[in-house]
Structure formats: C-alpha cells, structure tokens
C-alpha cells in the first residue's frame, strides 16, 4: 500500500489535523484525508485502471462529480492525460492539452486552485475554446488544483461538475486531499523505477498516446522552419479551426497529407 511518506507542503489532511468525524457534509459523507484516499485506491480493484485512473474515479464518486482528470506536465506545458474517471473527463483533459488552455493549465501555471462556478458565462472570455466545449458536454462548473512539489510543477487535477456552484468547505478540503494524494501517487510511481531514467508504465502509456504530436512538432519544425514551440502553436491553431483533435492533425502532418506554414495561421 502507498503511504504519504513523501512530505507535502500545504497538504490538507496529511498531518492529521482534521478529525473526519467533525466535518460532515450535509449528505453525511465525511471529509476524506490523503491517507484514506491512498488506502482506498491502493486496495481497490486493479481492474479499475492505473493508480491515477482509480484516484480520479474515487475522487469523482466521493465529491459527486461528473468526472475528474489528471494531467502530467513539464516546463514546456502539459504533456499527457495520465488519469481520468471516465470518457468525459478524459475528453475534457485532452481538449485542454489540444487547445493549450483551460483550468488545469491555469492552476498549474499559477500554482493555485482555479475554480469557475458557471462556465456558461464569464468563462467564455477566459477559455474561449475550452468553456463552450465543456458546457456542450454538460459540465457547468470546474475546480482545478495544481500538483506541485516544492518549485517543481507536475501537473493538475481537474474536477468537473454537472451543476453550477462552488464546492462547500468540506468538499474543498477533500479536493485538496485528492490533489495531495495525486502527488503522492506520481512520486510513488516514479519511486518504483530503477534505473531512474524511464517513466513508470502507468505514466509512459498515456505519454506515448500523444507521442505522434511530438513527432509532428519535430517534423513541422523542419518543413516550416520554425522552433518547436511555434510548430506546436501552428498545429493547435489548425486543429482548433478545423475542429479536429490535435492527434488527427499530427498524423496528417507526418503522413504528408497536411502541410502547414507559419503564414497560414494568420489568415
């Protein structure tokens, strides 16, 4: 079983400061601590997917969410959706990566919780690509938490809800416990790796899912004579305009079916 042996600054529940019995939600469901979450997902049915998947499913169930998703990032930005409670969460996480915008990205960039209680309104200007798609998928509110260790940004955990409104205090506390547990899971997986150069299969597999995008980025950097970051922006712009997943655009670029040039993005 995984224990929160890794120190987590600001991790709610890790230091046992909360008495689960004192904080009851109106429905009578108690606040969960990081330790409880880790115990639940590590003793759960392995058929429930990878550890990050199980964490997202447990989170969605416990907080009455439409879905929860977890994204892994590096300095260049988000790189893979490593966990999701189901297809909806998976799609919204992938969408954030495709667009390069969304609550998860904002949360990890700013290292703070990003919440929006009504995606149909103000969020349209904040996330012009993500918000309408979320609303169309039946998601009206979102809370995103950063996953970070010291100064190192590891990604984000997004919680999607079918009705507008905020998380109450007890739910917010539990949400933070899930984010702490998510960091522990990521470090735990990395801790299993020896030699240390590789990613754990539970993380490598989702990263490999988007490998074609990195290959197409490298490809486009040659054919369009641009840097990697600009090549990715070109592909994103085209995917957004064409309303297609970035993966499809990447495949078309690699196969030569689609040629992109810097000026095309400015039309």
């Amino acid at each position, binding site marked *: 079983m995984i224990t929160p042996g890794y120190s987590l600054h600001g991790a709610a529940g890790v230091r046992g400061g909360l008495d689960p019995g004192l904080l009851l939600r109106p429905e009578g469901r108690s606040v969960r601590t990081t330790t409880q979450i880790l115990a639940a997902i590590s003793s759960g049915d392995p058929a429930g997917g990878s550890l990050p998947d199980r964490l997202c499913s447990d989170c969605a169930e416990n907080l009455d969410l439409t879905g929860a998703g977890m994204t892994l990032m590096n300095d260049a930005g988000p790189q893979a959706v490593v966990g999701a409670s189901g297809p909806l969460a998976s799609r919204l996480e992938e969408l954030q990566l495709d667009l390069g915008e969304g609550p998860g990205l904002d949360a990890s960039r700013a290292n703070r919780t990003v919440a929006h209680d009504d995606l149909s309104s103000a969020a349209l200007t904040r996330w012009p690509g993500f918000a309408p798609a979320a609303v169309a998928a039946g998601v009206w509110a979102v809370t995103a938490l950063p996953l970070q*260790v010291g100064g*190192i940004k590891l990604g984000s955990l997004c919680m999607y809800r079918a009705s507008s409104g905020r998380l109450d205090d007890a739910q917010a506390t539990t949400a933070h416990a899930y984010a702490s547990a998510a960091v522990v899971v990521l470090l735990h997986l990395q801790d299993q790796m020896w030699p*240390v150069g590789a990613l754990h299969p539970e993380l490598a597999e989702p990263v490999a899912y988007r*490998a074609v995008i*990195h290959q197409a980025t490298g490809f*486009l950097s040659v054919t369009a004579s641009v840097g990697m970051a600009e090549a990715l922006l070109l592909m994103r712009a085209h995917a957004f305009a064409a309303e297609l997943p970035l993966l499809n655009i990447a495949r078309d670029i690699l196969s030569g079916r689609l040629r992109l040039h810097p000026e095309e993005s400015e039309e």
Partner: protein
Amino acid sequence: MTSERRLTRVFVELADTLVDEFDALDFLSTLTERSVELLNADAAGVILIDAHGVLHVVASTSDQAQLLELLELQNDEGPCLDCLETGHAVVNVGLAQSRARWPRFSAALAEVGFQSAHAIPLRLRDSVVGAMNLFCEADSRLSDDDVALGQALADIATIGLLQERAVRQSGLLAEQLQTALDNRVLIEQAKGVLIASAGIDVDRAFRLMRDYSRRNNQAVKDVARRVVERSLTTDQLTGP
C-alpha cells in the same frame, strides 16, 4: 508558569516549526535551546553521524569555539561516542568520573567550565543517527523523569530530521519524473525532425539515433537533443 505548561508550550512550538517552510538546522537549534531550559543545563549540541561514521556538530546553543571543540572531540572519546555505540543515554557524567575514562574529554570539559555532561541518543527504529549533548556548570544530576523528557526531545529531533529527508526525497523524485518526461518528449521530437529531414519512417528514425548513441557512447536522450538543436545532421548520424 508551571513546568508542565512550559513543557506543553515547548512541544507545541516544536510541532509548529515542523509544519511550514521547515528548516532542519533552525529546528535543531531551537531544540537545543529548549532542552537547556527544560533540563536545567547550560549548553547543548546535536551531533549526527554520517554514512562514514564521522560525527558532525549540526546545532548548538552557542558558536563558542570551546563548546564546538568539546562536541567535535567526541569523534575520539567521550560520553557521546559511547551513547552512539550503545544506543543508550549516558547521563550524569561528572568531571571526576570522566577523568579516568576520557582524559582528553574531561580536560576540555573542565576548560569550558562544565562540571557534568549528558548524551541522549537520536534513535530511528533500531539505529542511532546521532546524539544530543547537554553540559552543566554545576555538578547537577538528571532524574529518571529528566532523562525521559530528554529522550522525548531527542525523539522530536529525529522526527525533524526525517521530515527534512522526506522533503528532499520527494523533490528528488519529482525531478526524476520531470527529466524522464522531458527526455520522452525530446526523443519523439527528434524522430519527427529525422522523418522530415531524411525522409525515413519513425522506426528507422529511432534506430538511427540508437545506433549512433551506441557507436559514440552517448545516451539516446543526448543524441535526440543534438538532433532537435540541429547540431547533429542525418549524414553524421548515418556516417561511420
């Protein structure tokens, strides 16, 4: 203030220190000061034993050279060394008693003006990671209760050190995770560069980099970085 209330406040203070922006050295320094107050001593120091068995002074109530020497000296002899070897507290060591067993330590103790010394182990499960030394100007004696309190304070020091190690370990793992992810992305981008510039398929692109890496004894990730930076051409990759 009753000693019990005072004690509670010390423990709360130390627990608070453990939570935010933890600094192990500041923490141990606070611990030595409170230990001196609670156990009616005049000076204290924390000594840790490193992987090579060498003792290092990591905190003390004063930077006075003689006190530091007294602590350092115990790499050779003294109650601290005994405490580390046995894992048990060595307390109420008076000048007369120490003169016979540890002549150099005893001389140094008298020179600083101390009459007695105590050493309490920092224990981590079955191993001893260091010891807390206490020195008294009077030939005072620690009662059993005092020794138990001293041990409780030493145990807190151990918790502080574990906390520091956990923070360091999690930072290290997070860095490893980031590096592994960076390398993964870099290798895929390099494949794309080679596909476009050499007109080869993705498997061939990887094999080119892998073979070059073996021939030139360079890690694949470093070869990939050079491909992405265009400091390694396809001709160079395929060449001898």
